[in-house]
């Protein structure tokens, strides 16, 4: 008999909280200010959320940027399922969602928004997807949490929080839009 694998069947246990509701709000507000400052306003900017975790954050960042600048940048969503590099690794097949970019990318500065930056493979896939839709002037990356353990040379331009984690841990961003209280938590598979 093979010993039971420490895998997906094990329940996740809450280890610690990284950000509470106020912390999430502060982090997003700071990111919004940073990206307006760095890009000298919101003209020529567009926000693109990575489905599914990054999309709600992109919606919130757009609202904050609009409050600061009085100008609403366009919003899009990118789904990376068809661009993943692990599709033949025997993992569960990812669900495919729509990519919606209701504007021409060419010449715009895109701010790619995701909840957690980990190996960097999701960002790589998202970049490849975006390039198939046009040639943006630049792409910047905003994440709520950078948890380390990069496997590709990718870094974020705007980071809400840098967290020390182990690979056994799972970082989850809970949001009000998805029926939770805003918070960022670290979970671990039960032993």
């Amino acid at each position, binding site marked *: 008999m093979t010993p039971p694998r420490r895998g997906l069947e094990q329940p996740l246990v809450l280890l610690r909280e990284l950000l509470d509701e106020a912390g999430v709000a502060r982090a997003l507000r700071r990111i919004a200010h940073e990206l307006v400052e760095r890009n000298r306003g919101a003209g020529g900017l567009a926000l693109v959320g990575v489905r*599914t975790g990054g999309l709600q954050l992109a919606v919130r960042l757009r609202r904050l940027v609009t409050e600061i600048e009085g100008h609403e940048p366009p919003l899009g969503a990118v789904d990376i399922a068809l661009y993943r590099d692990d599709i033949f690794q025997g993992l569960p*097949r990812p669900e*495919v969602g729509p990519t919606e970019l209701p504007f021409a990318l060419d010449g715009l500065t895109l701010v790619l928004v995701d909840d957690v930056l980990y190996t960097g493979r999701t960002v790589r896939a998202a970049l490849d*997807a975006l390039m198939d839709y046009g040639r943006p002037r630049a792409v910047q990356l905003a994440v709520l949490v950078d948890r380390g353990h990069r496997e590709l040379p990718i870094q974020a331009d705007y980071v809400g929080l840098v967290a020390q984690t182990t690979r056994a841990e799972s970082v989850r961003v809970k949001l009000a839009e998805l029926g939770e209280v805003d918070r960022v938590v670290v979970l671990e598979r039960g032993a």
Partner: protein
Amino acid sequence: MTAFAHRHLLGIEGLTREEVVQLLDLAGTFHAISERAIKKVPTLRGRTVINLFLEPSTRTRTSFEIAAKRLSADAVNISGQVSSTVKGETLLDTARNLQAMKPDVIVLRHGSSGAAASVAAVVDAAVVNAGDGTHEHPTQALLDAVTIRAHKGRVEGLEVAIVGDIAHSRVARSNLHALTLLGANVRLCGPRTMLPVGIEQLVGERKGQVRVTHRLEEALEGADVVMMLRIQKERAGAVGLFPNTREYSRVYGLSAQKLALARPDAIVMHPGPVNRGVELDPGLADGARSVILDQVTWGVAVRMAVLYLLGTGGEPVAEAP
């Protein structure tokens, strides 16, 4: 999302409603890719799809080839006229030889019912039935269903008339399965010689959703969708199914006048190739209510969805890691 738990796509029969809906939803995503300037995603990079077409086909073969290429798979096309089958090699020997070249998916069009299932039994590759004799043509039914859904917003509760040589039509059979699974009511219509007795039994407990009639007016009355099948001219006279194409056209051909019996917003469909002036009035084929070319566009999206599901294997997951 529910699992699409099949290694092959041999027919619509045997699929669940959830699996059919999953394929249609997925086709929606792939449809959007065909609208982009760069109509290609890297998903099946390095995978090989062999299109083995041992019966004439332009539309379906091209559609599968484009679908494979838009997923970045390598597509190889073999058609009956140039293959070793003309030298007497059997289908299963051909299949075993192709398998030895390690394809990931084999798409088969063949004149014998059950050919796809026979090939699936001897190869490791996933097999897609692209039409086997008078049995099934599942991707045609899926593209028809998704076209109907795109135009009507739903399939459930619609009245769909399928008119023509029902007896010899794999398109009719696959559509009968798919449309009743999705909750539509299907009227099958054709001359008595082309209308098998008891065909509604094919869908078992859903047979209450099927009506069989040899009267075109009855099939058209209040229909939301009118699907005309190609009449195979070679079956006229010689085999005694109908006297001649003019007589067929007069009684079973769709004209604007007959279409007036259907709902005012009814759409006209045809799996192609159209015999203009036989089963379908040329004015209708090109008219505002014809969705024939939309069917062709959706065909690529549906085949991408099928190749994606069969070509990637694995189990679907509800939550990304």
